[in-house]
């Protein structure tokens, strides 16, 4: 058993009901699967009547990158590095920025009805609880809804979601971090999401030597002074379809390409590429303009400075790339089939152009323009 489960005090049924009557429930998810936990948040928001209740959920996830509802995954993180490291990507339903989740990052979700939505109050409860657990620590919530340690280390970021009737505000709480993994998958600008960015804590800092179970207890009881009730922790299994009917379908939707990549807002890529022919030693440059909508290439234009390839071939290349997912592998399959039909110089140059284009697919940082 993981330390997580063994340190919990399993509540009796009676105390759970006491918590229900007083309006606050505290739950922890058993799962460390990012999509299952996000699906659990979604399920609670849709199905639990929050009129007179608050619900507080705690979860952790294995290594994963989570982008906000309206973010661009290609701009935020390096897809290839993530693939090689086996780190999945998830898009959550709430807004805000990109976060790297791993076992050292605790997620706290505050559910309430819309009338009682108050993020500053939630963060105050968290900082109060941390100070109670470790009184010597200087933790403060900022206006940007971050929590900073010692005035400079960002240990928590927030995001929230509001819909008809329900709302939730979730924030992370970094208690131990693997900085190197984080740096290898996130793009530089994702680590700094505000004008005067507090740097993320380095793994050498002994931030909390509070053990995780102790931290969990401290945080879960943060409701008492702030929200007026103390409730024992109950454990939920989000993979249990009988307890959460329909949660499997929500998790599948969150894992799907259509949600993770297809919900990317429209963006354009504009760049110049350099080409050279190794056989004839000629060189040229080309202007590349690509528009991506809903994760699919909606238009692509390649304009050469000199006559490099027959026009009909450029036209065919753009034709097979259009309408397909903005994914280097999908494009590779299409382009390889096209290369078969060509010979000699045209084939050689088409092959080089394709290889160059495909290395650029998903590698846009400086050249990305959001519409």
């Amino acid at each position, binding site marked *: 058993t993981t330390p997580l489960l063994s340190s919990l005090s*399993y*509540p*009796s*049924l009676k105390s*759970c*009901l006491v918590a*229900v009557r007083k309006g606050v*429930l505290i739950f922890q998810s058993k799962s460390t699967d990012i999509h299952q936990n996000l699906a659990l948040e979604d399920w609670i928001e*849709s*199905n*639990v*009547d929050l*009129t007179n*209740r608050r619900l507080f959920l705690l979860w952790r996830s294995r290594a994963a990158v989570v982008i906000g*509802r309206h973010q661009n995954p290609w701009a935020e993180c390096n897809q290839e590095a993530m693939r090689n490291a086996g780190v999945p990507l998830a898009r959550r339903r*709430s*807004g*805000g920025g990109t976060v790297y989740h791993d076992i050292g990052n605790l997620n706290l979700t505050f559910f309430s*009805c*819309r*009338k009682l*939505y*108050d*993020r500053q109050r939630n963060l105050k409860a968290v900082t109060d609880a941390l100070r109670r657990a470790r009184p010597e620590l200087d933790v403060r919530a900022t206006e940007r*809804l971050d929590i900073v340690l010692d005035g400079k280390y960002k240990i928590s970021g927030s*995001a*929230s*979601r*509001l*819909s*008809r*009737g329900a*709302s939730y505000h979730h924030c992370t709480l970094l208690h131990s971090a693997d900085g190197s993994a984080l740096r290898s998958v996130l793009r530089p600008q994702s680590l700094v999401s505000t004008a005067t960015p507090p740097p993320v804590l380095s793994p050498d800092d002994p931030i909390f030597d509070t053990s995780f179970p102790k931290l969990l207890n401290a945080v879960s009881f943060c409701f008492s002074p702030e929200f007026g009730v103390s409730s024992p922790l109950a*454990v*939920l*299994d989000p993979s249990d379809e*009988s*307890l959460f009917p*329909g949660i499997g379908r929500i998790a599948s939707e969150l894992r799907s390409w259509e949600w993770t990549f297809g*919900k990317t*807002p*429209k963006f354009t890529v504009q760049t110049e590429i350099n080409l050279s022919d190794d056989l004839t030693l000629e060189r040229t440059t080309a202007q590349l303009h690509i528009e991506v909508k809903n994760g699919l290439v909606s238009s692509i234009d390649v304009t050469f400075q000199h006559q490099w390839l027959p026009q009909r071939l450029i036209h065919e290349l753009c*034709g*097979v790339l*259009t*309408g*397909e997912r903005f994914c280097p*592998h*999908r494009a*590779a*399959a*299409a382009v390889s*089939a*096209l*290369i*078969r*039909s060509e*010979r000699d110089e045209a084939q050689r140059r088409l092959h080089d152009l394709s*290889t160059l284009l495909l290395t650029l697919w998903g590698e846009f940082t400086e050249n990305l323009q959001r*519409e």
Partner: protein
Amino acid sequence: MAAVTRGSFIVFRRLLSQQYRCRCFRPQCVSSGRSVQTLAFTRDRTQRRFAWRTLHTNTVNYGPVVQFKLSDIGEGIMEVTVKEWYVKEGDKVSQFDSICEVQSDKASVTITSRYDGVIRKLYYEVDATAQVGMPLVDIETESKVIQEEDVVETPAMDQEEHTHQEIKGHKTQATPAVRRLAMENNIKLSEVVATGKDGRILKEDILNFLSKQTGAILPPAPMQHIQTPPPIPVAIKPAPAMPKPMFTGKDVTEPLKGFHKAMVKTMTAALKIPHFGYCDEVDLSRLVRVRKDLQPVTQAQGVKLSYMPFFIKAASLGLLHFPSLNASLDDACQNITYKASHNIGLAMDTSQGLLVPNVKNVQMLSVLEIALELNRLQTLGAAGQLGTADLTGGTFTLSNIGSIGGTYAKPVILPPEVAIGALGKIQILPRFDASGQVTAAHIMKVSWSADHRIIDGATMCRFSNLWREYLETPEQMLLHLK
């Protein structure tokens, strides 16, 4: 652990609203006699799944166009960015359908409609800034409701009243559009056979009723009582007991894109090549034993050994003797190029379609190295991650269609190659052995196709015989080890 789960379960049951419990935990009890909320499911996946529809008794008149204003988000926020529209002008919306998604300061908000109606105007483009309190959309409503804002919803536990048309003490359910149709045609809803869910009357039911009004007996409905007996004509056969199912499927047309579009070009070019076919069968009984013996060795090294590495290596050994099969003809059919490398392609069925990655320089690889490379390509193929380097440069192809099924096939040559082989499934069949006894043999059928402009039947036949010999007596491959 189990106690906690049960406890949590009971807690959750109490938490969930009344209607949800009725719906999910006792579905068998729903019938048209009870007052049950009709649940409208919309196509939009981010929509809350339980949108509740309130039916009206008013006659359906298209009401005024209402300006639906952006309501207060909370925390004193005055403006938001519109991120995604779920509707467009002209779309029909129901109450509680999602209209758009807006974002403000790390909060993502779903704005839902207050009424049923038709969207007439969107006030903002995507990424525009919308002001709280200003109009967001115009909705032409179906009723006389005048409220203008998306009021923050407190889940109403008391919305149990429904407006059903009560006819002769029976409640019938139908949407306003269906009611209007019935009214215009002077039809009593109680006389219409309902085929919708929960005994709901659909538009098709009204149309069916109209078409049958001239005479046929109405079939008895499972959930309704027909009060007036319909007229019975003399010569017409009685209608069947069940109402005729209506096929509502529609053709779907979508443009070819990506890989499939490129394949059209490849295959059109391929069929310009004059193909000839040659088939044979191979007795793999000895190879089956060899592979079985070798598997523990390869497994210890973490390599999966199938039959393909043997087929590929045997093909390469054969190509050393028949280089014209590893060649390419130029477009004008003037020159033939004998390729030095044996880059043997393997047709692979992936999620994207039939991709053909190839193993480079098989002439230099051992069977084990080929197996390793195949593992790598298969993993990438299964994940949809094959790159251009693996997919281009092939000189000869083998298609293991037998892994899915089949015996003989008629494979199509992939340009710029000149030959291809399709391998059927391995079957255990009775064959005569050397001493005239019937024995069980592992037989696989192979079908070759070659470009008849430069390959002749005899060449193909001799290559196939050589390839077959290597596979039927695998120890012969030892003679050619370098």
